[in-house]
């Protein structure tokens, strides 16, 4: 990353691994559980959060010196909601099909705690460029986990990836289903998403023991 100083590059790379928003900061868990039954939904949500968090962090950072501290949470909420609604309206008018795909994610983005969490923890105390990088870094970290969970849930739960039946047809009994394999319907339900996230947390902390929290 020749364009970025070492410190700036860390803002992007840290959240990918050792300061991951989902597994370390425990932000954005609800959406990671709710929408990862399919890989496609995971990817769409990741892109949407990338956009909103990058923009929102910049806006909050620019306003950080004039926001009254007593009502800062409400101000943050208004900024996210306004951004999301503007994008939704513009898409509805000029890219209707795209807006149909994204409409179910609108509510999930506004209430996603990863966005408020980064506003509160970073953008309120740092300049716009740094906040932008922080937003991009954290949403990429969020995306990595969403895509890993989405990959396993769709593969093991529905036997497909991005809607393509990679393991054969479960009803016609082709591919691996010919040998008696069955899809695990439990993978499609939220508890299995929690367990999958748990396994990722376990793997991550056993690779880097300094991440284990003291009791």
């Amino acid at each position, binding site marked *: 990353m020749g364009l970025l100083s070492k410190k700036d590059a860390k803002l992007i790379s840290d959240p990918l691994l050792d300061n991951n928003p989902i597994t370390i900061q425990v932000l954005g868990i609800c959406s990671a559980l709710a929408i990862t039954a399919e890989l496609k939904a995971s990817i769409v949500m990741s892109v949407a959060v990338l956009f909103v968090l990058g923009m929102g962090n910049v806006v909050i950072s620019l306003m950080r010196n004039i926001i009254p501290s007593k009502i800062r949470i409400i101000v943050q909420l208004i900024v996210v909601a306004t951004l999301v609604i503007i994008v939704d309206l513009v898409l509805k008018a000029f890219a209707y099909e795209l807006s149909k795909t994204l409409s179910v994610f609108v509510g999930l983005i506004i209430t996603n705690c990863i966005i408020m969490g980064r506003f509160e923890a970073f953008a309120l105390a740092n300049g716009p460029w740094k906040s932008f990088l922080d937003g991009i870094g954290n949403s990429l970290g969020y995306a990595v986990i969403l895509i890993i969970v989405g990959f396993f849930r769709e593969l093991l*739960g529905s036997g497909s990836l991005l*809607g393509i039946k990679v393991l054969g047809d479960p009803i016609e009994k082709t591919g691996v289903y010919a040998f008696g394999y069955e899809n695990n319907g439990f993978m499609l339900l939220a508890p299995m998403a929690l367990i999958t996230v748990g396994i990722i947390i376990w793997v991550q902390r056993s690779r880097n023991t300094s991440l284990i929290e003291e009791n």
Partner: protein
Amino acid sequence: MGKNTDSNGYTIIFATVMVLIVGSLLAFLASSLKGKISENKRIEKQQNILYAMGINENDESSVVFVAKANVESEFSTYITKQIVIEGKKVTEDENAYLIDIKKEAASAKNPSYVRKLPLFIGNKEGKDYYIVPVRGKGLWDAIWGYVALDNQLVIQGVYFDHAGETPGLGSNIKERFFMDDFIGEHIMDGDVFKGVAVAKGNADPKNMRKDDFAVDAIAGATITGDGLSAMLRKDLKMYVPYFKTLKQ
């Protein structure tokens, strides 16, 4: 953070100014885009109605509507008649598809109100299709759709949509694998209305039996499925008296 931003006066002024700016920005945007958005919605309705009667550009597994540019002409070609049923009275209305089902359902709570029921009659290759709009509740928000029936009241095609069902679970009601299961299902058992239920533990996952009044449910989307069954039962039933007059 500066000291003066903590005072009550500043906080109130800040909140007021912010609300004014955001409010007027959104109001301006919403009203200036309103025309375009409602035009898009109108086109979508026509596309959905045509989709239900099998006029679409689907390939193997995707859902592809008639292109936006052609939808107007295809709609007037295939939809031969639009009627509004009000109790026993039946009137023809070429804008029946613009009737707001949500408003009608709300007004119908008043017992003296006679609900307007739109019905679209299409003709493709000499066969008549009766397309019924339906609307109900899913898990999080509204679900709606169009059901195309033939004159024997056998489902010929459906289109379902939703405002906010869980992505990857309930949102799959608008996927081909789910909607295609409805084709060929009966809604009447002789003279008795049955509807089509979205059934869990359905012993017929391949959907070979078309007369069991059930299709296979989506795993993890029980409440959306139940809402869909209720929607079909409630809304299709309102049209049964009219269909009975057709049979005679």
